[in-house]
């Protein structure tokens, strides 16, 4: 009777040690903030052309 009681107690204690196995690992450099509207604008070829024109206008050698 006493052995059964201790056996059940041990099982109960061990059951309490159980934890979820699917751990959420931290994924570095995965942006968690709000979306920048500039990203959509950058995709347009017109914007790219505008920046290139600006560069050629002001930063190329004299």
């Amino acid at each position, binding site marked *: 009777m006493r052995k059964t009681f201790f056996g059940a107690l041990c099982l109960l204690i061990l059951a309490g040690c159980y934890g979820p196995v699917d751990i959420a690992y931290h994924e*570095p450099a*995965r942006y968690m903030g*709000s979306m920048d509207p500039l990203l959509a604008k*950058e995709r347009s070829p017109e914007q790219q052309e505008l920046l*290139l024109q*600006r560069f050629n206008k002001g930063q*190329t050698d*004299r």
Partner: protein
Amino acid sequence: MARMKFLCDTERCIECNGCVTACNNENNVPWGINRRHVVTLGDGRRGEKSVSVACMHCTDAPCAAVCPVDCFYTTEDGIVLHDKDLCIGCGYCFYACPFGAPQYPQQEAFGVRGKMDKCTFCAGGPLPDNSKEEFLKYGRNRIAEGKLPLCAEMCATKALLAGDGTVVSEIYRKRVMKRGGRPDALGWQTAYPAEK
């Protein structure tokens, strides 16, 4: 798609700090912060070299890799930006950055620092383009206006170039071919006559 990069031609930089002033003025940078620095090696000696340094918008940015709150993102043009609403001012990015780009404004007494501030390639942050909120938090968004960073556009000797990496490297290649290893700065031979 362009890959935006800075390049500072050390043969042309005359340490005028015009880029630093232009940046501070354009972006209303908080007192005590310089998003851009001019570093001089061998100051006052013959052959001294100056280089203008800010965030280099790394392809595999170490600041983004170490950030515990993941507040960094890279635009399709390769510009590394961050969200100040997420930043906790921990300073990890400062230790990770090889260029000392992240800066922290003093917020309170006893050195309590605020959220990280760094060069945005004049591209603002994750707020509506050219809004008042964006200007106050991140500075001016010149990229959205079709302009390039003011530091490079203001550079008198065109030492600092900012734009598509392919175009920038082509200009630098032509300069190196033209000068053939000789110093390019005007009056260099007068200021530093050749040793006999």
